[in-house]
C-alpha cells in the first residue's frame, strides 16, 4: 500500500478475518454474519422433519440430475437389446429401454434410481409429518398463516413431482396410472374430455406424453418447488422459529442454540445423516422394480396396480365410491354425462380433506376470534378440539390411503376384498367422528392428569401413618420448572354469538357462536397459584379444585 487511502480500512489480523474483510467490502458479508451468525434456533426433535424434507429434496435434485444424463424420454418404439434376458428383443419405448439400461447396464445406475425413489418417498413422508407437527402444535397461527399456505402448496406440488416421476419409466404400472388420470380428466363435467385430449396430445396415450411429463418433472415442478422452499425459509427466518412453552420461553423471545457453531453443526451433520439413511435404504431394499412390469402396452394390467403412498388417498377415494349403489352415479343430465362416481371421490372425498387442511388457520381464527400473534406452541392436549380435528383428519385421510391397498389387505389377511371395501367405507364416514370424540376426551383427561400432578405432586410410593392414625401416601411436589410447563397455557372460553353494529346476530355469527360452544364448552383450566395453595391446605379435597370457577365442566 504505497498510497494512503482517505478512509482508513479496518485491518484484519487473522486469515479468516482477511477473507471476511474481502467479502464484506464486496457483498456486505459482515451484515449477513451479524444477522445470522448467532441467530437462535430452538431445538426439539419434532422440529427436525422440515429439515428432513429439505435435505431429501436436495438429494432428489442431486440424484435426479444424474439420472437425466442417461434417461431418454422418448415414446418412439425400439427393440430392447440390453442385458435383461426376459425383455430381449421386446419392442418397447425408448424411455422404458433407457430406464432398463440405467437399472442394468450403467454402473451405479440402479443405486441412483433407488436413491432417487426412496428420497422421494422420504421427502413426502417428512413433509407430511412436518405438517402434522405444525398443525397439532398450532404453529400455523398468526403470523404464520401464509407460511402454512406455502407448506400446503409444497405438499401438492410434491405430489405432482412424485406422480410425474412415477410415470416416466413408461412401464405397465405407470402407464395404467396415467390411464387412470385420463379417466379422472374425462369425469370433469363440461371440459373434461378436452382436458384429456390436450393433456395427452390426442387420445390416450399418444406419443408425446412422456416428454411432456419429463419437462414438467425436471424443469417446471422443481423450479416451483425451489421457489416455494425459498419463500418458506425466508418466512421462517422472518418470523423466527416457534418454541414449546416452558420456563424462560415467552412470546417475546426465542430460546435455543446459536447457528454458529452448534445449530449449523447439528443441521449440517443431519444432512449427511439423512443422506446416509436414504443410501442405506437404496442399497438394501429394491424399489420400483420396473423390469417386472414390462413396457407399457394398453392391453395388460397386473395385480397390485397402485400409486406411490402419497397418491394413495386419491386412489383409495376412487376405490371406495360405489358406482351403482344405491343408484347409478353416472347419468345424463343438462345435455351432458355426469360421471359422479369418479368426479365426486376427487371433488368431495380427497378434495374436502385437502380444502379443510388449507383453510384450517382461517376457520380456527374465525371461531376463536383469536387474532393475536402466537410464537409459543400449544401442547396438543391443551387444544383438545384442534387435536381432535387433526386425528379425525388423519383417520379420514388414512382410510383413503389404506383403501388404496385393499386388495393386498385382502390377500395378506385372508379376508374378502369386498368386505375390506365395506369396512373402509364405514371408516371414512364414521371413523373421523369416533376418532374426534375419543381424542377430545383423551386430551381433557390428560389435562386433568396435569392438574392432578401440579396440585398434588408425584406419588412417591411412600406410605406414612399420621399421628391420629390415618395412612397417607406422601406426594412429592413438582419443582417450579416442571410445574411451570404444566400450567403455562391458555384455556380459551366460549365466545357466544355477538350482535353486529345494527344489533342483529347474523346467521353466520350464530354458526360461529355455536361452533365456539362445541369447541370450548368442555375445558380444563390451568392450575392457578390460589388453587395450589388451597389444595395444600385442604388436602383431603378432590383434585378438581375447591374453587368452582377453576374448572368449568358441563
Amino acid at each position, binding site marked *: 500500500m504505497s498510497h494512503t487511502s482517505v478512509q482508513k480500512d479496518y485491518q484484519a489480523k487473522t486469515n479468516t478475518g482477511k477473507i471476511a474483510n474481502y467479502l464484506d467490502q464486496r457483498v456486505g458479508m459482515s451484515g449477513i454474519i451479524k444477522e445470522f451468525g448467532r441467530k437462535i434456533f430452538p431445538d426439539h426433535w419434532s422440529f427436525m422433519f422440515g429439515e428432513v424434507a429439505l435435505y431429501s429434496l436436495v438429494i432428489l435434485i442431486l440424484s435426479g440430475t444424474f439420472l437425466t444424463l442417461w434417461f431418454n424420454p422418448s415414446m418412439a418404439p425400439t427393440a430392447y437389446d440390453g442385458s435383461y434376458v426376459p425383455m430381449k428383443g421386446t419392442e418397447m419405448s425408448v424411455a422404458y429401454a433407457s430406464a432398463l439400461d440405467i437399472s442394468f447396464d450403467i454402473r451405479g445406475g440402479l443405486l441412483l434410481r433407488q436413491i432417487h425413489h426412496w428420497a422421494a418417498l422420504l421427502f413426502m413422508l417428512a413433509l407430511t409429518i412436518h405438517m402434522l407437527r405444525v398443525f397439532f402444535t398450532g404453529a400455523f397461527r398468526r403470523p404464520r398463516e401464509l407460511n402454512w399456505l406455502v407448506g400446503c402448496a409444497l405438499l401438492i406440488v410434491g405430489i405432482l413431482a412424485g406422480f410425474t416421476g412415477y410415470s416416466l419409466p413408461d412401464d405397465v404400472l405407470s402407464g395404467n396410472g396415467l390411464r387412470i388420470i385420463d379417466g379422472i380428466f374425462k369425469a370433469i363435467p363440461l371440459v373434461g374430455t378436452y382436458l384429456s385430449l390436450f393433456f395427452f396430445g390426442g387420445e390416450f396415450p399418444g406419443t408425446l406424453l412422456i416428454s411432456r411429463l419429463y419437462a414438467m418433472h425436471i424443469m417446471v415442478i422443481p423450479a416451483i418447488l425451489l421457489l416455494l422452499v425459498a419463500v418458506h425459509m425466508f418466512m421462517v427466518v422472518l418470523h423466527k422459529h416457534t418454541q414449546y412453552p416452558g420456563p424462560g420461553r415467552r412470546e417475546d423471545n426465542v430460546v435455543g442454540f446459536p447457528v454458529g457453531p452448534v445449530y449449523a453443526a447439528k443441521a449440517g451433520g443431519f444432512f449427511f445423516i439423512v443422506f446416509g439413511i436414504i443410501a442405506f435404504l437404496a442399497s438394501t431394499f429394491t424399489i420400483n422394480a420396473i423390469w417386472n412390469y414390462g413396457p407399457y402396452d394398453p392391453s395388460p394390467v397386473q395385480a397390485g396396480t397402485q400409486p406411490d403412498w402419497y397418491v394413495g388417498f386419491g386412489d383409495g377415494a376412487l376405490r371406495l365410491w360405489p358406482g351403482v349403489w344405491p343408484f347409478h352415479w353416472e347419468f345424463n343430465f343438462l345435455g351432458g*354425462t355426469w360421471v359422479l362416481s369418479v368426479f365426486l371421490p376427487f371433488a368431495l372425498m380427497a378434495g374436502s380433506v385437502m380444502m379443510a387442511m388449507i383453510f384450517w388457520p382461517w376457520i380456527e381464527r374465525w371461531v376463536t376470534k383469536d387474532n393475536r400473534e402466537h410464537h409459543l406452541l400449544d401442547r396438543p392436549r391443551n387444544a383438545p378440539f384442534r387435536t381432535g380435528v387433526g386425528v379425525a383428519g388423519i383417520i379420514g385421510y388414512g382410510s383413503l390411503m389404506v383403501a388404496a391397498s385393499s386388495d393386498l389387505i385382502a390377500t395378506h389377511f385372508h379376508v374378502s376384498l369386498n368386505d375390506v371395501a365395506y369396512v373402509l367405507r364405514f371408516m371414512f364416514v364414521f371413523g373421523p367422528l369416533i376418532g374426534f370424540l375419543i381424542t377430545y376426551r383423551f386430551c381433557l383427561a390428560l389435562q386433568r392428569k396435569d392438574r392432578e400432578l401440579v396440585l398434588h405432586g408425584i406419588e412417591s410410593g411412600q406410605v406414612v401413618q399420621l399421628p391420629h392414625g390415618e395412612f397417607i*401416601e406422601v406426594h412429592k411436589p413438582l419443582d417450579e420448572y416442571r410445574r411451570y410447563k404444566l400450567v403455562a397455557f391458555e384455556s380459551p372460553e366460549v365466545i357466544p354469538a355477538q350482535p353486529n353494529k345494527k344489533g342483529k346476530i347474523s346467521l353466520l355469527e350464530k354458526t360461529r357462536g355455536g361452533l365456539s360452544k362445541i369447541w370450548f364448552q368442555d375445558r380444563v383450566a390451568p392450575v*392457578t397459584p390460589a388453587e395450589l395453595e388451597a389444595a395444600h391446605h385442604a388436602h383431603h379435597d378432590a383434585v378438581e379444585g375447591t374453587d368452582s370457577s377453576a374448572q368449568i365442566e358441563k
Partner: protein
Amino acid sequence: MGNHSDGVQAKSSAVVTSQEESKEKFPDPGLPHHAPRLTDVDAKHAKTAERQVVLLFVISILGALLFWFAYFGIKIGGNYYDVLNPEANNTLRLQNLLMGLGIAFSMFGIGIGIVHWARTLMPDHEMEESRHAISAEADRADAQEIVETILDESGIKRRPLLRNTLIGSVILAPLTFVTLLRDLGPNDPSVLKYTLWDEGVRLVRDPSGTPIKAADVTIGSAYHVLPENLNSLTHENGYIEEKAKAVVLLMRLDPNDLKVSAGRENWNVDGIVAYSKVCTHVGCPIALYEQRTHHLLCPCHQSTFDATDECKVVFGPAGHALPQLPIAVDSEGYLVAQSDFHEPVGPGYWERGKHVEEMKSEA
C-alpha cells in the same frame, strides 16, 4: 379422589406465598440452571469424545473407499434374470449393496461425527434472543407514504386513459401465450366413439396375433383379443391409441347361463362372448376373469362385472356395463366382429350420453 397429601406442606406453601404478585398465574421461573456435561467438567471425557468423532470421520473415509472398491472392483455384466444362471443378478445385487453401504457409511460417518462433536464438545448453553415485531407502526406509515408518492409521481391516477390502456394490454399480452396451448391436442371428442372393430374384422390373440377358431374357445377359457387390422398401424399413425380402445376379452360360457337382452340375441356365438376390456370406471384393462363365478374384476379399483349378465356392474365404483362386441364366425370358422361397439368404450365423459344416442341412430 382418595387421600392425597404432599407431605411437605410447609415448604410448598412457602413457594406459593413467595409469589405474591399473582394469584391467577404462576410466574415464569426463567431458564433452568445449566447443568454441565461430563465433557465440560472432565478433560478425559472430552478427549474420549474427540477420539470418537475422529473415529467416525475415519469410518466415513473407509465408507468412501468401500464405494470405490465396489464400483471398480466388482465386475458386473452378463445376462440378468437368466433362468439357468443367477450369477449376474447376484453380482449386481452385491455391487449395489456395497456401493450403497459405502455411500451410507461415508455420509453417516460425517453426519454422526459432526453432530456428536456438537453435542459433546461445543457449548450447550441455551441462549435467548428477543423477537421483534415484523414491522413497526411508524415504518408502515412511511411505506404507505412512499407508495403514495410513487403513484403520484407516476401520474397514473391523473391519467385514467393511460392507466386503462395499460391494464388492457397487460391482461391481453399474456393471453397470447395461453393461446399457444390451444394446439396441445385436438378438440374433437367424437374420436372417442369409434374403435378399429368393424364388420368382418377377425379377432386375433394378444400378443401372438393369430386368428381364433370358435372351436378353440372351450368353456372356461378366456382369450385376450385384438382386432386383426391393428397390425396395419404403426407408432406414428395411432397404433397404441387404437390398441388402447380396441382390447377385448373373449370368453366361452354355457349358453344356458347367459342372460341376453333384446337386440343382442345374435351377438354371441354359442356362448362365446366378447366384451371391451377397458374398465368403464377410469380405464384400466379388466382382465381378471373368474371362470366359475363368471365375474370380471378390475385390479385397479375392484369394479366387478358379471359376464353372464352382459357385464353389468355388480360391485365397485364403475358407472356402467362393459360394452359388448357383437361377434360371428366367418366362412373359415374364425371369429370375426359383426360391427364396431354400439357405444363408446372406456370411462364415462361429458359427451358420452350424446355419443350413445348418435351411435344408436347410426346403427
